[in-house]
């Protein structure tokens, strides 16, 4: 970090100190989010596999849970580029969004042509480094969409970092 605190950085620091838990859109002191986008997707309009949906009870965004309370329904993915401008390693720990029932961090790995998608507990962002989420790599998985994601829509996600705290990002649906 050194002592190269620019006026802007001091300003940001002051704002953070003053506003406490309020979120700075798209960046924290050390974390910057760029190129946020989401894949367009359609939620299931009351016709998901496996049956008994309480139509109307929860409105358009309703969905049911299948065996063992596991989520079923339509999913989506948000991709962001995370840049850590700080001098210490950070990690993305979790994400949340009002667009989905559950939000998880996932990674897809290509194992000799077989794609394996798995949840991850965190995504490390090295000091001075960046993580570029993209199809076939890391993504923020939206499980159980509450609404359609149509091109031109925005999806708000809040990303929680180990050091950088919470950072909000606005993902453009495309």
């Amino acid at each position, binding site marked *: 970090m050194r002592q190269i605190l620019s006026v802007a950085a001091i300003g940001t620091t002051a704002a953070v100190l003053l506003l406490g838990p309020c979120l700075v859109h798209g960046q924290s002191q050390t974390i910057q989010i760029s190129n946020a986008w989401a894949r367009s997707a359609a939620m299931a309009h009351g016709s998901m596999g496996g049956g008994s949906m309480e139509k109307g009870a929860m409105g358009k965004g309703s969905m049911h849970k299948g065996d063992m309370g596991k989520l079923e329904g339509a999913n989506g993915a948000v991709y962001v580029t995370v840049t850590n401008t700080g001098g210490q390693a950070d990690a993305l720990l979790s994400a949340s969004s009002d667009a989905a029932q559950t939000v998880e961090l996932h990674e897809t790995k290509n194992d000799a042509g077989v794609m394996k998608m798995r949840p991850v507990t965190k995504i490390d962002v090295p000091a001075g480094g960046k993580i570029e989420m993209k199809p076939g790599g890391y*993504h923020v998985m939206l499980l159980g969409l509450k609404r359609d994601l149509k091109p031109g829509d925005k999806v708000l996600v809040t990303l929680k970092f180990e050091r950088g705290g919470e950072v909000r990002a606005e993902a453009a649906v495309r």
Partner: protein
Amino acid sequence: MRMFRHCAALVLLLTGSATAAEFKGGLLTPSKMAPDFSLTTPEGKPFRLSGERGKVVALWFGYTFCPDVCPTTLAELAQVRSRLGGDGNRFRIVFVTVDPERDTQARLREYVSAFSGSFTALTGAPERLAETRKAYGVVADKRVVAGTSAAYLIDHSAFVYVIDPAGQLRLMFPFGMPIEDMTHDIKLLLGR
């Protein structure tokens, strides 16, 4: 088989210069007839691969629960189709579910409509879907995974199988192949 190979060679000669070096995707040599199958559309209509002669078919095996690799591939193939312009109607994108349990006909209808109907979704009896996967060497392993709200995930092959207008399995596109390269190959197979 031998006669068939001769025919294939003749087709190659007639269509001109489509040699291995010109294709960007993985070329299958010798090419063979694409294994035929009969599955069901979300509207409940039968779909037979051999009924698509005269078109190039891009065959993809996936599941709608997948938010990442599957919609990415389908969106990219749709872009290829639009880049073909008027020839797009001779290019059929086919999505075969590897998850008949969750991918009901209703679910597939919605999925297709979310992609503006740019592809044909297919399902069928689990045994028949398994036979089809086996014929193409497609892997699909259901995994119950800790740490997710998803009841299960499916590890699956991520190649696009490309069938030429004569019904021969000619190319395999790996995941992430540039759209311009895929478009290039489809044009070659269409004789453009």
